[in-house]
């Protein structure tokens, strides 16, 4: 949770599609929640599962990973790899007692500013409902 009591949301956006889509949403002045931070990555498959677990550990309440639509990946098949990872990762999060909804994968192309707005807004609402992620003690001396 941030100082305003809103969930901390992290969005990993791929350089070629989703980041451009988010940019378009911005320059089109679409209204969006403000409690998310963007990390631009070259490809959604750059997002190592270790990074996601680490982010949850450090107090992030929800993580969005957005990439190019299937078939449109700049690196041909990166987004398919991401999809397979996220499926396994969601299952693993469930086993750790973390609601798998806290991790979401989506596709946004460079021309879909409105779609970005819609995804980020609905995700922020969902995270609002789930509230703060309470993890057991993950730091030990």
């Amino acid at each position, binding site marked *: 949770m941030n100082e305003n009591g809103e969930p901390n949301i992290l969005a990993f956006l791929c350089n070629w599609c989703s980041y451009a889509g988010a940019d378009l949403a911005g320059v089109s002045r679409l209204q969006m929640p403000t409690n998310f931070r963007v990390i631009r990555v070259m490809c959604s498959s750059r997002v190592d599962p270790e990074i996601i677990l*680490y982010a949850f550990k450090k107090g992030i309440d929800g993580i969005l990973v957005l990439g190019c639509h299937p078939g449109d990946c700049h690196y041909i098949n990166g987004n398919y790899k991401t999809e397979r990872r996220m499926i396994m990762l969601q299952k*693993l999060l469930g*086993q750790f*007692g*973390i609601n798998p909804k806290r991790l979401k994968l989506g596709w946004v192309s460079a021309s879909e500013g409105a779609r970005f707005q819609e995804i980020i807004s609905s995700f922020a609402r969902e995270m609002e409902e789930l509230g703060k992620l309470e993890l057991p003690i993950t730091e030990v001396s």
Partner: protein
Amino acid sequence: MAEKLKFAFSWNASCGGCEIAVLDIDEIILDVLEKVDILFWPVAMDFKKSDLESYEDKSIDVGFYNGAVRTSEQEEYAHLMRKKSKVLIAFGSCAHLGGIPGLANVSNRDGIFEKAYVSTLSTVNPSRVFPEPESIVNGKKLTLPEFYDDVKALDQVVDVDYYVPGCPPPPDLIAKAIDAIIKGELPPKGSVIANEKALCEECPREKNKKKIREIKRVHEAVDDGETCLLEQGIICLGPVTRGGCGARCIKANMPCRGCFGPVDKEIDMGASMLSAIASIIDEDNLTEEEQKKLVESIEDPLGLFYRFSLPVSLLRRVTLGGGNDE
């Protein structure tokens, strides 16, 4: 003759295999004993805690601590061994990573007691008697160590100098470690005494391009005895596990389960393995739906990927109660 080195061995939350592994170095132990005095080794000789307490601080040259830390007694021994030893070695997977006892971090004390003392079919305990740190029997107070909710690896409790990994550590690695100690040729503090690279580097099996179309559990597969197990669709933790064991499980036709822990720069074995599996699915010959189904078919990713390393993983343990994500 120069003064003999002094060793101590302490057995904690582990099965005891590590203690026996020390004897597995066979006749080398006789050479070792010429150069080493053992000051504490309850599994083999009659020592009491008071013996260990009576030694001067830092009077033991090398302390071997095996087993994870789960009870107050084991925690006490961790501090005691640290205080008395110049060099403290986390010996075996449990001390190094938490090991199999570390899987208890999917539950907590109440959950474990309920299972062990009530719900198993062979248990009859209608009055729900559980082990208590203190109980009065015939007017006398009896005490037991406190059982913690959480299992920890040794370095999560005290400072550790070296790690000898393995479940149990293989004899040649133990001999190598003891030899290095005797000669005073130890690596930098914090080193894991094994290989730096992953197990795949030393695996004798034939490796080709990895493109898998099915994932099989060990009992569902017929191994051809030659090709990489991952290529045959059997999940093997070799790519994410430190080498140095001589691929002993692979040579017995069993996949690696990760007892040597992660390689140096790797943070979380489960995340790395999951990533590796996602990368070797045969995209060319499977539809997107089939690919999804395939990765979904892994029954228990937590138990499979973190079999030995749950307490040292990023998330460390499962959220139980109190959390809002139930």
